[in-house]
């Protein structure tokens, strides 16, 4: 070896194919005697290729309307702001209607309710799981529902959300106060996930309107229906889409 000492920077540049050919040949020769180093660099190269392959499809995805508009000149931005305001007003109106139609009044502003906090924690913990998102899979749905009903001491059901494009993955039992709680997980076509968190709410047999909360990037609609409190969470979809699923869930649970 007659060249300069080989640095980690040289090895990185070798991985990225950014070395002049002479230097590259020197590194090749150096690596020939060092199988461990060669394997390490080969893994780096492999990961770069995997990264490009993994995210390549994003380049071809159609732009969502908001982004397509953002690329246009500024006047379009004002228009879009106006649209956003209009959507917000529409959302507020919807919320208000639900409120009235379902009945009870929401309590005055309070700290984040415990059901929301617990639902968000459970969602954030399990929804990104790749290999073990649920304890019991949807293929054993009857067993799952019977088991959770028994442990929660209430008649639990997993709503069918196929009508809004979400399939049951399965569910799990979770610790809670005062008793165990449960989580069902659903997945939509683009890989988006929502979780339905349930707990018994024995203190008061009542119904409440949908309420909405956001903790970090997790959006939650929650409500109480007779013996059970529900919280529907997602970090993958917006408030309007989540509301649609909440409505479908409520309809399924109250046929």
């Amino acid at each position, binding site marked *: 070896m007659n060249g300069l000492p080989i640095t*980690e*920077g040289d090895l*990185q*540049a070798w*991985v*990225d194919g*950014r070395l002049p050919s002479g230097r590259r040949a020197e590194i090749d020769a150096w690596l020939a005697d060092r199988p461990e180093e060669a394997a*390490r660099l080969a*893994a*780096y190269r492999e*990961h*770069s290729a*995997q*990264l*490009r392959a*993994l*995210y*390549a*499809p*994003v*380049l*071809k*995805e159609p*732009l*969502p309307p*908001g*982004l397509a508009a*953002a*690329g*246009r*000149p*500024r006047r379009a*931005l004002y228009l879009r702001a106006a649209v956003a305001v209009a959507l917000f007003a529409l959302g507020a109106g919807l919320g208000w209607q639900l409120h009235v139609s379902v009945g009870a009044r929401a309590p005055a502003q309070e700290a984040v309710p415990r059901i929301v906090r617990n639902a968000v924690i459970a969602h*954030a913990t399990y*929804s*990104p799981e*790749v*290999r073990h998102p649920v304890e019991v899979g949807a293929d054993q749905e009857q067993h799952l529902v019977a088991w959770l009903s028994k442990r929660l001491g209430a008649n639990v059901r997993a709503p069918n959300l196929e009508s809004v494009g979400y399939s049951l993955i399965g569910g799990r039992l979770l610790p809670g106060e005062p008793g165990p709680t449960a989580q069902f997980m659903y997945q939509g076509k*683009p*890989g*988006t*996930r929502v979780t339905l968190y349930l707990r018994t709410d024995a203190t008061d047999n009542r119904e409440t309107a949908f309420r909405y909360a956001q903790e*970090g*990037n997790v959006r939650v609609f929650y409500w109480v229906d007779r013996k059970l409190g529900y919280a529907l969470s997602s*970090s*993958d*979809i*917006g408030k309007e889409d989540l509301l649609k699923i909440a409505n479908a869930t409520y309809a399924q649970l109250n046929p």
Partner: protein
Amino acid sequence: MDEASRIAELIPRLRRYARALVGERMGADDLVQDTLERALNKLHLWRRGTDLRAWLFTIMHNVHVNQLRARRELSALEGEAMGLPVRATQEAGIEARDLERALGQLPLEQRQVLLLVALEEMSYEQAASTLGIPIGTVMSRLSRAREKLRLLMEGLPASGRLHIVK
């Protein structure tokens, strides 16, 4: 071609990068949208003849850091992993999901460098100027990012091993 059209042409690449940086789709598109708004508002500050793509990525990094700060996730900036949600792409297989998850566990500053170099295929000089850091820092972050990613993909405790490797 005017700058606004050139920016529009770069949107897919901004989305791809944001998806890898942020992890989940909605957050990534929010980031792209905020980036585009700021870029269009500050277009008069862009110096003609300089790299428009690098300029946009610089803006995106600033917007992203501001978003994180707004969410009080400052720990991520100080080199702590973020534990991102990891469903960035459609129908990703288990191996791809492992890669997404490992990527999400890299500290932000390492993830930025790795993605600029490996995904965006920037030269080290471009990455350095995009991030406003010396090229030596790019190299050391790149090296740490790759090794941590490798250990994560092999299922080894990366944080523990890194000190020894370093």
